[in-house]
């Protein structure tokens, strides 16, 4: 099942500046969607809007026809949009495993309480969640750090914690804000492979990335933002052939 995301005339203004400006697009057929654009183009702001962290000044967003425009971040997360953060936001004093368990616990406080008062059924459910969380850690390659405080991990590993945590929320749409920043080439390859695999399991991946080559290689559709507006929208080939896109990226890396 693919998610149907609809953004209509979305605008976010900070003082006089429009971080995103009358932006409209739809996406229905899953896969990895790349979102690129120069620094300050509004990519993070769009992700903040989609995850409820920032309210739209005007416009609407919806997922599967359900209006998300004025919903709180935790409601949006439960409705199927989870995310990672460009500036790392792991729970540094919790173990890596607890980081990944939190989205599960948040969906079933009753189970957690039932486990505390030793209800066998709740206990089995909690055990199943732990096993699932460990599987997820294994998938992103950090199972061996499960019991360590997430804050003690290296930068690249903390990025993986965030990805596992976002996947743990059972999203229909996952928003990744520069997940490859600061990673080595081989780590980047690992993770882009993971994004492709995740997308084949029916989770739509919205990938914001500075490394344009990586985005073009994994995305089926690429959106290019510039000054808060959609500069281009199409397949990787169409977008990389677009002269306006090349002009916007002038002086920045473009392969």
């Amino acid at each position, binding site marked *: 099942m693919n998610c149907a995301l609809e953004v209509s005339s979305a605008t976010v203004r900070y003082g006089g500046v429009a971080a995103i400006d009358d932006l409209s697009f739809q996406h229905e057929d899953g896969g990895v969607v790349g979102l690129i654009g120069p620094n300050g183009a509004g990519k993070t702001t769009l992700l903040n809007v989609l995850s409820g962290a920032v309210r739209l000044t005007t416009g609407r967003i919806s997922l599967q026809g359900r209006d998300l425009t004025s919903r709180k971040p935790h409601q949006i997360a439960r409705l199927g949009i989870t995310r990672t953060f460009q500036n790392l936001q792991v729970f540094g004093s919790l173990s890596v495993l607890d980081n990944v368990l*939190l989205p599960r616990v948040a969906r079933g406080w009753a189970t957690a309480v039932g486990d505390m008062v030793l209800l066998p059924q709740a206990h089995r459910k909690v055990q199943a969640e732990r096993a699932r969380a460990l599987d997820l850690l294994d998938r992103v390659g950090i199972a061996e750090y499960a019991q360590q405080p997430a804050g003690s991990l290296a930068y690249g590993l903390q990025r993986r914690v965030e990805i596992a945590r976002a996947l743990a929320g059972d999203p229909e749409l996952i928003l990744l804000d520069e997940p490859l920043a600061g990673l080595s080439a081989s780590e980047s390859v690992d993770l882009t492979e993971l994004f492709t695999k995740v997308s084949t399991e029916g989770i739509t991946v919205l990938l914001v990335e500075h490394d344009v080559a990586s985005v073009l290689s994994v995305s089926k559709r690429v959106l290019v933002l510039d000054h808060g507006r959609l500069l281009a929208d199409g397949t990787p080939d169409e977008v990389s052939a677009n002269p306006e896109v090349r002009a916007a990226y002038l002086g920045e890396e473009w392969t």
Partner: protein
Amino acid sequence: MSDDALAAAERSATSVLHAVLRSRWLRYAIFLGVLALVPAVFTRVPFYTMSVGVLMAIQAIAALGLIPLTGHAGQISLGQAAFFAISGYTSALLTTRWHTNALLAMIAGMALSAAVAYLVGTFIFRAQGQYLVLATLSFGLLVSYLANQLPLTGAADGIPGIPALAPFGFTISGDVDMYYLVALVLLIAVIVVDALLRSPVGKALTALGDSPVATAAAGVSIAGLRRNAFTLAAALSALAGSLYAHWSTYMDPGQAGILSSVQLLIIATIGGQRLVWGAPVGAFVVITFSEASKTLIPKVIPQATGNYEIVVYGIALIVILLFLPRGVGGGLIGLAGRLARAVRGREATAVD
């Protein structure tokens, strides 16, 4: 020979240290032991009296809720004394005017405080960031003002003649009786809050303190979580407030003052905000300082008035936090961990 004996003693000391760091039931048992020793010690040492012991236990209960609220969720509250007072005054009014059973009055006081905290929390935690501290401060000032002005609470005179607690028909008369009661309540409260911190709810509170945005993105209502932690802290402070009212037999508006809220924050900070032990350790250290300054300052500076105490608090806080940024409790835990590691390291090199 003596080297061997020393090494053996060191080894057994380290294994005890490891056991204490590992088993929480052992920690509770040690705490129980310390609480049980207090009467024997406090009746023999200068300026410690049983009344000081009762005060320490009551303040520890009142500060305990700040461990999850401030130490984990990262929310500073200047409203703790307000909940202490709401419950204390409720106990006072119900027992002196309507002759309600003291235990029932206490439960009513806690329920009222918790309900007020829930409502206030629902209202203020819609806001974000530093305004929240100001909101708790405004609430504290409001309750303090009302306690000073309302005819119902006896205004500046307060309410005297509050009857003592009489659980199971056994009247708590002296400070020693009262000490055993509040120490038992403190022990139970510490175990309950410790269990909460270990639970998924506690993990969510820690997450909230680490990153509010990521906690929300994980599907947790951060306003709801803050409100619930605020309500729990209020309920514990309320429990302490009612215990205080029935012990001192007198509620006065000073109990609702902002300085009392600040003192509770100081207790949690000095003791260490991350672990439940911060509340009792902080209460011991801070009240020792305040009692010592009450006895010593008049001797050193004969014209001194009560305000000097605040200066002493301030200096003590700064000095302790300079040397122990995680508070006395956090410092002790860190020291124990370092000791254990150092000894283990030496054993490892000895084997090599």
